[in-house]
């Protein structure tokens, strides 16, 4: 069954939801960066690589969410040409 293209209001709700999640993840990354810098300057190197890996995973999540956001727009554009 072919999926119904999302309306503009639906897309806006999804965009707000994704933006909220992305902002939370970015704030988490900011905390991670400051904590890692503090540990590094304090001579603690054990957390540096795990923190870098965690930050990379966070970026992967963010990238995936952004990709989903643009894929929704692509779906709408190809279905009826309605694009903001």
């Amino acid at each position, binding site marked *: 069954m072919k999926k119904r293209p999302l309306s*503009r*209001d639906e*897309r*806006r709700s999804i*965009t*707000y939801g*994704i*933006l909220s999640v*992305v*902002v939370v*993840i*970015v704030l988490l*990354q*900011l905390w*991670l*960066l400051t904590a*890692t*810098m*503090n*540990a*590094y*300057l*304090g*001579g*603690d*190197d054990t957390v*540096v*690589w795990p*923190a*870098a890996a965690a*930050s*990379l995973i*966070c*970026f992967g999540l*963010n*990238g995936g*969410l*952004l990709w989903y*956001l*643009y894929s929704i*727009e692509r779906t709408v554009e190809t279905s009826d040409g*309605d694009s*903001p």
Partner: protein
Amino acid sequence: MNIPSNRSTAPNGRPLEIQPKWRQDFPIDVADDELGARREFTKFAVLVSFAFVVGQCWIALKSWLRRRKPTPGSQRIAAIDDVAVGAAMLFHYPTENDPCLLLRAATGTFFAYSNQCTHLMCAVRPEMDQSRLHCPCHAGYFDLATGRPIAGPPRRPLPRIVLEVRAGSLYAVGVERRTI
């Protein structure tokens, strides 16, 4: 004027025909504009996320390079009698770019710390009578006996220089960085 059916109303909710002329000339679709702006902001946030990853990788690289460096060797600072009780002496360890302070709190009690404040690297000054080190830049204070911050903006202790006494002389043999 033909208005597309999917165009949203103006912010005040009235039809376009009775809107001010500037809005009739430039009939921005607010809902579409909002959707596009939020999407672009999400893209910017993801870019910031990438910048944080770059920052983390930079720290990891610096950490890796630091671990590859050989541990600092032993360096003679001064003879014990060169430093009076209650006095301080400046020296450099492990390199000429790392100023440190040797402090003699009592006859047999020596402390040595990096002379750079852990807040913004200003030089700290000993206040032996009050058993503390003072950073004049932003009024930071460190405990003389432990090097830990006791007031002001610094959050990390001063790096401690490990001392050894050999044949009446004081030697710096290592640097102990701490987070708490």
